[in-house]
């Protein structure tokens, strides 16, 4: 007499398990199968192609009613199980009581419906089964239908691409900073977003859903930023929830999923479970490969053979036509990584290594070698011997890169930007151009985007033999071979608006840059796209992130702004009060005509700023690569030699310029007469008042180097001085390398060019001033007032936790 086996759930996991069982021991059990869906078993992971119209339902059926009946399975499709009675060893369904000797739970999972108002409106659906697909296709049938997908993970994006292919207007709302953040790093996420956007899909990252609205039917999704996204259908693809209700009610040990051991046994020895409803060693699985492994193990357990489930390495491929994407393993920032980017072709590959073994892999745009890499990962092969060419994949193994270049035909193109082929470069070399600069000058190869620089050098090396020494990279840091000037140019010409985009488009060699390139890129984005780019605080040096100057002992200095070096008794009292209240150990009068409070504790900063704000003072930006001070003398107000109102002009300049970010710090001074008490002739911009007007000079220095300013122009009115100064600073902001002071920048570009742009061409000057003003509409504000707000306290200034009071155990 065969034992009675009851299975709850007729999905992929139980289907595969039955196949395994029938292979091993076809007649061991008398089987009854319950399935909530009124149909047999189909390949659930192929629902996306069905939705896209690439496949039909019939094509994805794996086990139909005939298959089950041919194997003697008693099918109870469309009949939901309501209860498991462990004592009586039976289950209860609409059709009554069914007894079991062994029970298998394979209830799978349901879409996680994010807990917001309106998530139960008609038209809000998950993406788990054929009914969901049918509902989506019905919505897609309407003319000009709009779909909003909540969740930019694997499932959400497959739904988005499919509905887009069905002609719907699709918006993807994703909570995290980039798409598929569990499988992809930000660079690959960026490429994917770009691809989807090029198909007309709108992608919004960092999107916090506030509510879903509609009267009888869903109408729109509202985000926290108050934006509304109209929708005829809303697809919830924000994750899955293991279907554990039956297990919990039966008293089985359940965490996120029904807990099983290595043999797929639950806490009741007669009940087994597999698939997306289970939790094994703290992990819940949502991909098919581990489910199939579970099926094999469970089948063996059922016939009394020992078997153990071992979590497999799981790889991910997105099933969207035309998108090649592969991800596996730990692709986090391991100690070592090899990154390959081809911006032209939109290719990104990243291998992470640990102890000369591949532990993770992300590929975008070219996944041809994914299995070759994946095999090496699974077998933990030592790759130290092939490391040099590893990233180029299986085809490149055993080939010396130099030999590969030598073998290239003369007609093959080396520089895509300028259309220069190898033969042209070789004849230039033979004609005497024996270094990179000479080849650039003669052929223009590598003179534009610079991506082919390495190739050009290899052509040099293979042509010249031992005579050629590869020069050290001129890149701004180890992450790139590009110079600051190249980077700025590429950001501008290719409209690159985020740091991950910049790193991808310019072929960065690391995944998220370093402390040298990130602040530079952040500045370039701010300068180029003031209205669109959101300042990245994590790419800021500590002083600019905390709006105070860090000192050697980790305390900070606080310096309020004193416009034009003027102050009042009230301001001085407030400064003195703050110094007392926060136990400031040192008060210092600076060379920039203000007062520095030194030795302030980090946690006191916001309260101290609030006190200074209350007395009418704002940040002096003494910590920034930005406008610092405008030093003045007292001019015609008091001085018997003064020729103009130098103090008033200084204050006007400071009120226009303050808050602006620049490549390096910027200091100004206005002196009321040629005696120059404000020492204007060693500043970045110096103004000297004379009887006939003003002399504006620029590019001075009084730091590591001492340089007198050079004349920019004479001006007749205050307004002219202001326009010249603003235009000069904006030109500096737009074209200087990060961390070049104006004197260094002017030495590079030449004062004649600066005068041409700022003085001679009045239209150009006006345009510079206009662009500066656009930027200042965002940045002319007091960061202290903002960061002293109460909401900043818990998320920035307070400690994350205080364990000093915690008891020892």
């Amino acid at each position, binding site marked *: 007499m065969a034992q009675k086996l009851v299975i709850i759930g007729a999905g992929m996991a139980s289907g595969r398990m039955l196949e395994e069982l029938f292979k091993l021991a076809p007649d061991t059990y008398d089987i009854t199968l319950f399935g909530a869906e009124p149909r047999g078993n189909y390949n659930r992971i192929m629902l996306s192609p069905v939705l896209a119209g690439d496949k039909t339902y019939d094509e994805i059926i794996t086990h139909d009613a005939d298959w089950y009946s041919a194997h003697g399975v008693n099918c109870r499709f469309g009949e939901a199980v309501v209860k498991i009675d462990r004592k009586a060893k039976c289950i209860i369904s609409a059709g009554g009581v069914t007894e079991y000797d062994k029970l298998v739970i394979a209830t799978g999972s349901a879409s996680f419906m994010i807990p917001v108002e309106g998530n139960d409106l008609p038209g809000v659906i998950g993406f788990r089964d054929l009914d969901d697909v049918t509902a989506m296709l019905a919505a897609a049938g309407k003319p000009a239908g709009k779909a909003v997908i909540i969740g930019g993970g694997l499932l959400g994006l497959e739904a988005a691409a499919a509905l887009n292919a069905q002609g719907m207007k699709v918006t993807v709302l994703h909570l995290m*900073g980039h798409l598929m*953040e569990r499988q992809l*790093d*930000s660079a690959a996420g960026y490429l994917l977003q770009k691809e989807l956007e090029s198909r007309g899909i709108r992608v919004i990252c960092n999107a916090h859903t506030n509510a879903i609205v509609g009267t009888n039917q869903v109408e729109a999704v509202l985000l926290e930023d108050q934006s509304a996204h109209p929708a005829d259908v809303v697809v919830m693809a924000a994750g899955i929830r293991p279907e554990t209700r039956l297990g919990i009610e039966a008293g089985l040990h359940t965490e996120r999923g029904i807990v099983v051991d290595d043999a797929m046994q639950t806490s009741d020895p007669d009940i087994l479970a597999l698939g997306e409803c289970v939790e094994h060693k703290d992990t819940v699985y949502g991909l098919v490969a581990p489910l199939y492994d579970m099926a094999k193990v469970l089948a063996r357990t059922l016939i009394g053979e020992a078997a153990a489930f071992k979590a497999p390495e799981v790889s991910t491929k997105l099933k969207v036509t035309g998108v090649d994407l592969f991800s596996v393993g730990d*692709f*986090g*920032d*391991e*100690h070592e*990584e090899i990154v390959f980017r081809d911006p032209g072709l939109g290719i990104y590959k990243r291998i992470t290594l640990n102890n000369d073994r591949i532990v993770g892999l992300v590929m975008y745009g070219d996944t041809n070698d994914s299995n070759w890499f994946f095999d090496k990962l699974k077998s933990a092969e030592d790759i130290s011997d092939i490391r040099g060419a590893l990233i180029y994949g299986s085809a490149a193994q055993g080939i010396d890169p130099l030999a590969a270049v030598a073998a290239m035909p003369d007609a093959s193109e080396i520089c895509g930007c300028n259309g220069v082929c190898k033969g042209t470069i070789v004849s230039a070399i033979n004609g005497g151009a024996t270094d990179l600069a000479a080849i650039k000058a003669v052929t223009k190869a590598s003179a534009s985007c610079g991506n082919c620089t390495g190739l050009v050098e290899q052509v040099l090396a293979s042509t010249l033999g031992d005579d050629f020494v590869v020069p050290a990279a001129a890149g701004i840091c180890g992450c790139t071979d590009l110079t600051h000037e190249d980077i700025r140019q590429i950001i501008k010409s290719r409209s690159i608006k985020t740091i991950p985009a910049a790193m991808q488009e310019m072929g960065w060699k*690391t*995944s*998220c*840059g*370093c*402390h040298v390139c*990130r*602040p530079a890129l952040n500045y370039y984005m701010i300068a180029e796209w003031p209205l669109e780019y959101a300042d990245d*605080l*994590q*790419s*800021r*040096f*500590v002083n600019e*992130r*905390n709006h105070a100057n*860090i000192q*050697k*002992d*980790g305390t900070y200095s606080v310096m309020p702004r004193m416009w034009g070096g003027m102050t009042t008794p009230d301001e001085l009292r407030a400064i003195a009060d703050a110094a007392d209240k926060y136990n400031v150990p040192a008060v210092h009068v600076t060379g920039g005509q203000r007062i520095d409070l030194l030795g302030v504790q980090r946690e006191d900063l916001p309260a101290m700023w609030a006190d200074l704000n209350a007395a009418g003072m704002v940040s002096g930006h003494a910590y920034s690569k930005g406008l610092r001070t405008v030093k003045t003398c007292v001019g015609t107000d008091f001085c018997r030699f003064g020729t103009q109102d130098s103090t008033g002009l200084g204050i006007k300049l400071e009120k226009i310029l303050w808050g602006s970010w620049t490549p390096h710090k910027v200091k100004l001074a206005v002196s009321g007469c040629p005696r120059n008490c404000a020492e204007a002739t060693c500043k970045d911009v110096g103004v000297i008042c004379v009887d006939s007007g003003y002399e504006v000079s620029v590019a001075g220095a009084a730091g590591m180097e001492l340089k007198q300013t050079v004349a920019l122009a004479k001006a007749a009115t205050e307004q002219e001085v202001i326009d010249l100064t603003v235009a000069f600073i904006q030109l500096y902001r737009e074209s200087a390398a990060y961390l070049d002071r104006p004197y260094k920048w002017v030495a590079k570009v030449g004062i004649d060019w600066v005068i041409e742009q700022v003085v001679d061409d009045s239209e150009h000057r006006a345009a510079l001033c206009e662009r500066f003003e656009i930027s200042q509409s965002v940045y002319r504000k007091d960061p202290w007032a903002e960061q002293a707000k109460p909401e900043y306290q818990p*998320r920035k200034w307070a*400690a*994350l*936790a*205080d*364990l*000093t009071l*915690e*008891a*020892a*155990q």
Partner: protein
Amino acid sequence: MSNLMSNWIDIAALDDIPPRGARVVKTRLGCVAIFRTIEDQVFAIDDACPHKKGPLSEGIVHGRAVTCPLHNWVIDLETGEAQGADKGRVNTYEIRVENGRILLDGARLLARSVA
């Protein structure tokens, strides 16, 4: 996996730390800096650079490393070792993320302080 001696303390939500950022936890042994990488991995190390005690929690986080804000030493978050030519090491502490919460192993931090 936790060993017998560990004492996991729920200190905060993962989202309380910005990606590529850090926050500190006060302990009787001084501040411990909790880092979150761009890949949402977390690391806990002493908040004092082996060079001149700079607050590492204020450094720029890149990959699995942080650059000290005082003199640009680069510290590996996983091992606590100074990178490149610099020599030195900071203490590291066991830490993990579970269901969006950061758990710090307080065994060493609390036990040593009363020893």
